[in-house]
């Protein structure tokens, strides 16, 4: 039943994000109801059968089970040659239309331009709806800082910081260890490992999000009906106890919060670009 539900939800999601499925269905229907050679081609028959099977929840659920539950619904569309068939149908239509002697050249040009414009409007032209990151814009300040610390440090650097900092650090430098990695917020990555994070780290992550948004010391948040209380001082203690020797905090931390860290933990954070950084004495 869960697979069936996923199959139905998946179809809604696939058709929400873009219009290629609509173009595919339109071309299938066009050739199905008109007299032509495309209908006789194996590619047309295969695409038609597979499209129907991928849309129907029961057969879609079978495909999902076959591709292993590791993958979501959208991947069963790998079995359907969407790009190849749309290009095939479009080519036959446009070329037949241009070879039709009864039509004027201007009429052909206008129809072709209109169809191409309609096709282009079905997409997003390099402006993907899914979150794409341009990794060409590195967090220069963080990169320079990390290079310096790693160069001068005799022991491995273990870093804790906001999402973009830890994500970037681990992507560009394999020699930096993290308090927690990208799988803390991208849960799908947990499928790659049997390891899980203890609750204290989850709490620390929640505080880091709060610090990034508000720069404050303590607050609470409701997660799955449970109220989690977090305090910056406790979170930093947990992190240091766990081996963290470099902490990078968002630049918007309030002066009061930083003073608390200094008085209660004896930690002085130094501004580095848009970040506030603490480096343990032993590697400093």
């Amino acid at each position: 039943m869960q697979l069936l539900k996923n199959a139905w939800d998946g179809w809604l999601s696939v058709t929400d994000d873009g219009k290629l499925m609509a173009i595919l269905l339109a071309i299938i229907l066009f050739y199905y109801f008109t007299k032509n050679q495309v209908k006789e081609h194996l590619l047309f028959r295969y695409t038609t059968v597979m499209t129907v099977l991928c849309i129907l929840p029961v057969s879609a659920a079978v495909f999902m089970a076959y591709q292993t539950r590791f993958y979501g619904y959208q991947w069963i569309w790998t079995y359907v040659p969407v790009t190849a068939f749309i290009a095939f149908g479009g080519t036959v239509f446009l070329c037949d239309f241009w070879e039709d002697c009864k039509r004027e050249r201007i009429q052909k040009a206008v129809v072709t331009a209109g169809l191409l414009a309609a096709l282009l409007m079905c997409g997003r032209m390099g402006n993907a709806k899914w979150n794409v990151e341009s990794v060409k814009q590195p967090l220069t300040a963080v990169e320079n800082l990390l290079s310096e610390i790693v160069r001068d440090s005799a022991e491995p650097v273990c870093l804790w910081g906001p999402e973009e900092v830890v994500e970037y650090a681990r992507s560009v430098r394999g020699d930096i260890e993290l308090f927690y990695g990208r799988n803390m917020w991208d849960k799908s990555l947990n499928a790659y490992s049997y390891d899980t994070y203890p609750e204290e780290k989850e709490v620390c992550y929640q505080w880091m999000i709060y610090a990034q948004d508000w720069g404050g010391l303590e607050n609470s948040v409701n997660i799955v009906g449970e109220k989690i209380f977090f305090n910056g001082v406790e979170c930093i203690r947990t992190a240091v106890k766990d081996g963290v020797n470099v902490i990078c905090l968002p630049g918007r931390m309030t002066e009061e919060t930083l003073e608390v860290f200094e008085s209660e933990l004896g930690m002085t954070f130094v501004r580095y670009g848009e970040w506030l950084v603490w480096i343990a004495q032993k590697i400093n």
Partner: protein
Amino acid sequence: MEFLMCLLIPGAAYVLGKAVLRVLYGKKEKLTRQDNFIVGGIVIIGLAQVANILVAFLGRTLSFGTKIFLVAFVACTVAAIAVLFCVRSKDKRIAFTPGHQVLYIIFGLLVILQAAYIVAGMPVYLGGDMTMETVQSFLTTDAAYTVNPMTGQPYELGIPSRLKLLCLPTLYAMLSSAFGVEAINMVWVLAPVFTLFGFYLVYSILAQVLFPENRKRRICFLLLVALLVWVGDYMLSVDGFDLLHAGYRGVSIRGAVLVPYTISLVLRKRWKPVLLCVLAEACIVWTLYGMGACLAVAVLLMVTEKVINGYKRRMGGKEDAVCNS
């Protein structure tokens, strides 16, 4: 070194693919030059898989795996040249006939634009993927899966063996180490560009299969494919998005290269290379005990053809050839 790699890998892939197809089909092979590149690419994946097993399962270092990979790569390329020398055949030289130049130029510009978009912007979709971190951890530790790629700290419970079998991170790490290419450029730039060119090679084969006698239709087909790559740039699993934002992933190589290539092989009734596609997919994507999309597509295409031909026979009609040519 990056430039050398960009010349060496496709060049060796061409020779390897040509030799494998010569062995499979003898002198009378009727496959295209593009087939050589694709089959050669699959052979390189196979070599990487051997090195991956040594590193990930037998506990050898990445440097050792890289040496074995390079030795095997050179040995296979030399053997391929020897095979081609011994089993020579007269290549049909296909002369470039003029016509539709404007369409070819527009197509070329679209492909270059897409490659430039990948190289210049590095617009990567990171969701659900840890290839980059895995390659970095391999290079740092000179071993495979000894530390959790997400944190760089030792694993507590480990990772599933089926994941260790996937050879792409090892291949990227080996190429990065052998050619002195930064891992970030190897994974997020060069690999997606190779996948993009693989995609267009496969679609040019499909164009020849679908429109064997009509060059104008072939270039129209390729033009529409290039436009569809831009149009399909909206979600993972759609060719456009996979190619422009995740071309280094196994699922992207499968969806953009292996599956359409399998379709082209079945349409041409060339069954032996289908097995290579199935094996390559098992090496780069998590499949159901080796049964992945390539096998399913080949079987379902064959079943569709048999069912329809059987139906036509019963109705007293003429059977269809698989390919219109």
